Each structure stands twice: as C-alpha cells, then as structure tokens.
C-alpha cells in the first residue's frame, strides 16, 4: 500500500487484464498440454478465487520455465464461473469437451464442487479442489487437496479444549452445506467428549450478513455463565469483516472469548485493520508466516510474478501448489495425461509442502497435511501457537458421525470405491 498511486493501480489492472486475456487460447496447438482453471472471477466469490486463478497461472508459468511436462508446454485455459454454480457445470463441460483440457483446477465453495462433480464423472476427467471442505464425499475423478474436518476443525476444537480450557461452545456459521455439515460433526464430537447439550449454541446467518449486533451480544451473554467460552466460526466470505468489527467494537477480547475461524486467512485479513482482533485464532494447514526456506522461496516467486510486495499467500494457494505438483508427477510417472492412468499413478506420490513436510496422495484422494493453529497479529499475519507433531491423513468420511463412521474411501484395487462399508464389506453407504 505504501507506493500506491492511482496510476500504478491502473497499470496493474491493465496488466492483470492482459494476463487473463492472453491466457485464453487463440488457437489449438497440438504440442501443448491444456490445463483448465475453473474459478469465479466476478460475483461474490471473486474476492477469494481470483487469487487462485493467478496462482495457477503462476504455477504453470514456473513449470513451463522448467521445460513443461514430458517435453510439452502447459497451456492454461481460464474460464469465469461468475459465482454461478449451474454455469460452473456448463463451463466444466466446455473445458473438457470443447477445449479438451487434461486436468481442471478449480472451485471454492462446496456447492460449486457438488454441481461440477457429475460432469467430471461422466466425461472421466480430473478435478483438483483446493479448499477445506466438510468431508462426507470421495469421488474417483476428484482430488481433495484442502483439509477435511479431521485436518482442521477437530484439531482446532482439541486445542481450545486442552490449551485454553474452553467448556462452552458457540458454533457460528454461514447457512450452507460446509458450515452445516462441519457443525454437525463438531457437535457430535463435543457431545462425545462429554460437553452438555446446553453448553453448545449453534447459530447460522445468511451469506453476506452485515448486522452482527444481536448475535455478538448473544455470544457475550452466552459467555457470561461462568464457564470459559469460545466461538468456532465457519462464517464464510464477506460476512467476516463486519463480524470481527462488531466483536472489536463490543470489546470482546480474545483473552475472554477467543474466536477460532476456518475460513479466515491472510487474504481475508488484508481487508481490514486487525488491531482489535489480535489473539483471535485460525486453524489452517499453512500460514504465510511459517518460517521454512520453501515458503520463503514461494512467497518471493509469487510476489515477483504478481508484481507486488503487498500480496499475501494463503492456505488454498498452497493446496493448489501441492495438487499441481502431484498432477505433474503423476503425468510424468504415467507417461500420459490420460485420466485413468493418472488416477492410478497419483496415489502414493508425494511432494514437499511449504511447511517443511511431505504431502502424500492417499488412496481416498485426500492428502496428508500438518495442522497449524495461529493467532491473528496486528499486521494481518498469523503467529503459529500450536501445530501437530505429525502429518494428519485426510479422512473422507467422518468417524464421529454414526452414519459415516463405518465408511472408507479407497480408489485402489481391489476395493476401488468411494464409500466402502467396512461392516457389510461392500460398496455403497448405509444412507
């Protein structure tokens, strides 16, 4: 922000425009491998997804500088799903059928993933999905490089319970599938841990909710029963800024009622003054502040690519990096971009993540990740206060919900199915 001027902003905008324009292929070339990028560049989700589009262009440019894949250059094909989920399914079909891409990286919300799933299944293509999600799903054509609940929500609750001594829980979320399912898992987990039902308050708000006065004062009232209280927030997108502002204004300090968020990262925090939020928490698998040589290199390369030292990195960007590198490795191992060959080759491959560990693709198409808990600092970054000692393997079907506890996903022979029932020893869920 320091050297900002209207001129440079315009210039940057013009540049960004030309980047995305040049990304659209003018003519089909036979000697390239095409990679589809399926993100919202307009509408409500543009705030988060535009960066992921740029991340993919950045990764592809880097790979091409290294000589491409199997001697062929990679060619990005960018489409804008405009935060419109039926359109996402149409564009996914267009990418696979018309543009003939070999793999697609994209989607942010679960509703986007759910609407494009049938397309990938029908046309047998590959989707790499980079965002933390609610689990309860494993599909042969999809690779989930974001966190499943056991890689984010459950460890965060454990941290609050053990380190902060929290006994009373507010589960606040936006009203759609990810928060609803995550909160269902968390509620069951807390009840299993012996938390009384009256010590759990669940609250849902619409997308883009901006008037948080009543809810914050309810949280304060709920927290005044003499037990340590914390808020587990699955509030998504734009609604977070007014929520945190109201917390700050009503004087809810992190020392009294900490808020742990699953959808608030560096990118979201770059939109406001974080001084009143110092000490509130977020659980992710990557923070920009993680001090490793890999991360330092990644940040430097990214900022050089995007042309701004103010741009931050975040968890879904790392997920795209891991997914992309795994895909490249799988293609090279299989010697072809054919979907079936890549699906067989990718399981068991590993690539370094940015926090100093290895990300391995598991048979259930999830990956291994470390879990980090960070406290918000006044510079919009996170300070890691806790992390898991080992990498946590992603679990597709939650072990804490009775209807999915006996399900496992395994896309290798001989099981080869996404919802293998360990009790009946057959495919197909009990639901």
């Amino acid at each position, binding site marked *: 922000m320091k050297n900002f001027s209207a001129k440079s*902003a315009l210039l940057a905008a013009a540049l960004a425009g030309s980047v995305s324009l040049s990304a659209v292929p003018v003519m089909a070339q036979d000697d390239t491998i095409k990679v589809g990028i399926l993100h919202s560049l307009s509408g409500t989700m543009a705030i988060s997804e535009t960066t992921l589009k740029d991340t993919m262009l950045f990764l592809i440019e880097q790979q091409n500088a290294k000589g491409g894949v199997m001697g062929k250059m990679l060619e990005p094909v960018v489409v804008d799903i405009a935060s419109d989920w039926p359109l996402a399914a149409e564009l996914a079909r267009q990418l696979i059928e018309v543009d003939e891409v070999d793999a697609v990286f994209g989607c942010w919300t679960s509703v986007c993933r759910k609407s494009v799933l049938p397309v990938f299944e029908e046309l047998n293509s590959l989707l790499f999905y980079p965002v933390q999600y609610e689990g309860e799903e494993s599909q042969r054509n999809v690779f989930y490089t974001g966190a499943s609940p056991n890689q984010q929500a459950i460890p965060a609750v454990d941290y609050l319970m053990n380190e902060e001594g929290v006994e009373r829980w507010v589960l606040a979320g936006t009203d759609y599938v990810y928060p609803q399912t995550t909160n269902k898992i968390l509620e069951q987990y807390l009840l299993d841990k012996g938390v009384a039902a009256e010590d759990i308050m669940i609250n849902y708000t619409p997308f*883009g*909710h901006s008037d948080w*006065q009543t809810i914050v004062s309810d949280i304060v009232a709920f927290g005044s029963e*003499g037990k340590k209280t914390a808020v587990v927030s699955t509030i998504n997108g734009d609604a977070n*800024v007014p929520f945190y*502002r109201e917390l700050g204004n009503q004087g809810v300090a992190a020392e009294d009622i900490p808020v742990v968020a699953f959808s608030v990262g560096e990118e979201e925090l770059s*939109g406001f*003054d974080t001084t009143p939020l110092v000490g509130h928490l977020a659980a992710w698998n990557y923070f920009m502040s993680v001090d490793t040589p890999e991360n330092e290199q990644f940040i430097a390369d990214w900022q050089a690519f995007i042309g701004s030292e103010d741009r931050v990195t975040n968890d879904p960007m790392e997920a795209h990096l891991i997914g992309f590198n795994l895909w490249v490795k799988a293609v090279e191992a299989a010697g072809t971009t054919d979907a079936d060959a890549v699906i067989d080759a990718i399981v068991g491959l590993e690539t370094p993540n940015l926090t100093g560990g290895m990300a391995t693709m598991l048979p259930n198409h999830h990956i291994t990740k470390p879990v980090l808990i960070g406290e918000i600092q006044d510079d919009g970054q996170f300070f890691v206060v806790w992390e898991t000692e080992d990498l946590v393997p992603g679990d597709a079907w939650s072990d804490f919900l009775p209807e999915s506890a006996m399900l496992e996903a395994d896309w290798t022979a001989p099981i080869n199915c996404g919802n293998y029932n360990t009790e009946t020893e057959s495919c197909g869920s009990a639901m």
Partner: protein
Amino acid sequence: MLILRALRLVLLALPFLLLPSNAIRAQDAATDIPAAIQAMGEANLRELEQIVADLAATGSDTVVPVLTALGDGNLYLEETSGAVLIERGSTYLEPLSGEAVELGADADLSKIRVNNGLRRDIAAALAGMTLMSDSPARRLTAAQGFLANPDPANIPLLDEAIAAETDANVLKAMQAARAVTILGDDEQSVADRKAAVPLVASGAGRNALTILNSALNGAPEELAPTIQSAIAGLEQERAIWGALQNVWFGLSLGSVLLLAAIGLAITFGVMGVINMAHGEMVMLGAYTTFIVQLVIRQNFPGLLDYSLLIALPCAFLVTGAIGVGIERGIIRWLYGRPLETLLATWGLSLILQQTVRSIFGPTNQMVIAPTWMSGSTEFFGLSITYGRFWIVIFAIIVFLLLLMVLNRTALGLQMRAVTQNRRMASAMGIRTPFVDAMTFGLGSGIAGLAGVALTQIDNISPNLGQNYIIDSFMVVVFGGVGNLWGTLVGALTLGVANKFLEPYAGAVLGKILILVLIILFIQRRPRGLFALKGRAVEQ
C-alpha cells in the same frame, strides 16, 4: 519510609512467591533483569512464559515498561545486534533506561510475539506492579487486572491500596476486585463472602454474571441463596435492558437502511426511475472514502482522524457527478419505459462492479476507523458502540438536510413541480431536463454519503452495493413511494422488527419473515405506509 518501601516490594512479590513455578527462582532475588530481557529476543513461547514470570517476580518497577510493551506487541528484536527494543511511535527505546536508540541502516526489526495465555499472565503481573502507580488510569487498569485474575494472595495488597486510594472511580474498581477475590476464595468466612456479593453485582460491570455464576458452582449451602438472588436480580435487570438494547440495535440497523434507501427514495420515489445501479453508487462512495483516506495517510497523517469528514463532500461530489452522467447518458432516453430502465441500470451496475474490480482488485480494501468511532460505552445497562452511534446521528442529519433541500430551496421546489406535473412545470419556464439531472445527481450523491458511513460496518469490496439494493427497494416500497417520511418510518420499522425477530427466529428465518410480512402488508396497502394522495397518483 525506606522500610515501608521494602515492605511494599515484598507485598508486591507475594503473589508470585506463591506461584509454584516461580517460587524457587524468586528466592534468589538476583534475577538478572538485563540478561532476562535480552533472552526474550530469541525465546520460544514456553521460555517467554518463564522469563515473564521471572521478571514479574523481581517486583522491580523497571520491568513494567518492557512487560507492558510485550503485552501490547510493541517489543522488538533488532536482529543484527540482538538488542531488544521498545517501539514508541517511530522511535525505539532501550527497555530499561528508556533512552531512544539510533538504529543503524542495516537494522532488521522483528516483533516479539505473544499468545493469549501469555497476554493474560502479563496483565496479571502488571496489575500487581502498577496498583500503587502515581497515575489513576494505571491504577484503574491494575484494579481491572485483579478483577479479571482474582487471586486470594492479592487481598492484603488490595487492602493497602484501598486504604491509600483517593480517586473515587479507582476506589470502586479496587473494592470490586477485592470483593470478587473474596467471593472466589473458599477460605474466607461465609459472612465475608456474603457481604462481597452485592459489591460484585454492582461493581463488576457486565462480567458480574460470569463471576457470580462461577462462584455459585461449589458455593456452600449458606452462601448459595445470596448469590442466587443476586443473579436473579441481575438477570431481571438485564431482561429490561435487553429489550431496550434490541430497540437500539433496531434503530441502528434502521438508520443504515435509511441511509442506503434515502437516495433511492429520491430517484425511485420522486422521479420514478427504477435504478438498479443505486447500490453501486453506495459502493463508489465507499471507494472514494478509501482513496481519500489513502491520500491523507500518505500526505497528511495528522488529519487521519478527520478523513471520514473530508471524504463526505468528496464522495457526494464524485457519486453525484457520476449520477448526473448516468442520467444524461442513459436514463433520459428511457423515461416512461420502466422495463428498459431496469435492464439498462442493471447492466450498468454490473459494468461498474467489474470496473472497480479491475482497478482495485477483488479483495476488500481497508478504511481505518477514526479513534472517535471505535470502541463502545456503557450507558446504564446498554452497550453502545461509537461507530453505530455516529451512524445513527449521521443518518438523521442527512435526512433533515434532504428534507430541507426538498421543501426550502428553489431546486427542491422545481423538483417537486417537475415530478408532479412535468408539462405544467415546463410551461412555467422550468428547465425540466436540468432538474431531472440535478435530482438524479442528488439521489446518487446521497447514496455516496451512505457509502462513507458503510465503510465503518461493512466490507469495501465491489459487491458492497448488491447487499443493500434489495433492502433499499423494500424500505422505499414499504414506506410509500414518493414520501421521505415514509422512508424514515419504513427503515426504522424494518430495523426494529428485524432485531426483535432475530433472537427468536434466527437471522435467516428473521429475514424471510420480514419479507413475508412486507408482501402481506403491500397486499393490504399497495401504496405503502404513507401513500401519496392527489392527482399525481392517478397518472
């Protein structure tokens, strides 16, 4: 005198002597303070905890600045020399002497970070050290620190402080802290603890319920009824204030709706133009505020607190000018064709959104709240946040100004004339195209003003306007098209109704219910709350 001082030091150190982790270290009173501070630079969280405990155990006044700085996040490590420094404004101070340090050109500062647990420890340690400070503000903070971290070992210290205290406010806080400590101490007599209950109930502010509730868990039988009745009293009080609080929340939500809708009341209500790009005017007002603040921050940092006031005329002029441009360029060709106007302005709103997204990027922009708009105050049982308070005041001022423009100025007279009977007004010599442009510009300019206010409660993103366009139309239609008073009453009614439904129905269902109620209401009274009467309506 010297003996008294020594005694005080011992008393200060007392709480920390009793903490097992420090007990041994505190005895060898020679904790090397400079060395300990030095070690903070490279310490991890666990080591830092130990250092803070050691420093606190020295009881020395000299460590107060360094602990305060650590807790506030103002303590830095200079990586090249390894020195630990306190940041104050743009200067860096040596932690013990407080002298400013000249930084070399190769200085590499990194903040020494703390977590919630450590911040709590520091607050507790500082409370003990600053309870006897000369500044009443510091003593007050210290007393509040004791209240938040009650420890029976502090009672003698508090007794001494209470005896010496002269400031009434601080005294009250200290007595409350003492009462809280006694109430929470099982070893005090039941009579003492009983006596402490009313002091806690009256003195501990909104934490009182928390404290009483936790004291109730495991309270002896003789004590429990006293605590229960105190809790019942507090809860009854809270129920009464809770209703008033809801009214306040409703008024503040209503004033936001009023601000967003009042510009629309002019363009839609008075002119009859369905302007779907109204929300984007609000958004542009917010972005103008962002730019104004950016310029001020870079060139005139001293004016930062007034940046919103400076942004007001700027936002009004910018969005007003854009509004005039829209009217001249698009809308004037479409008068009398509402469907086309709707589609054209809808398209325009998408263009404006994407333009802003291309120029400023899709992420939120930051507008810092001026100091006079952050924080909250307790007004009897109500907690009122300053930001919301000023927005309510601002909404009222904008409303009154607009009313004056419409009813007391020549332009207002012409506007009303043109909207009521265009041909007659034209025949009287009024330049109707000019008046149209001015009216639309006024409506857009007021939307820009709303944008300035919304920077304080919402995201500044290209989508900002979309969140308000539906609500704005709802308010105008509900209040009665063409009537400013209707907009005022409509906005406040919707705000208060929303806030009373929310606790029972939840935010999602509450919004749906409001929508259903409005549909039913419009069925009964198609012209809204305050219907215009007269011949103009018949057209």
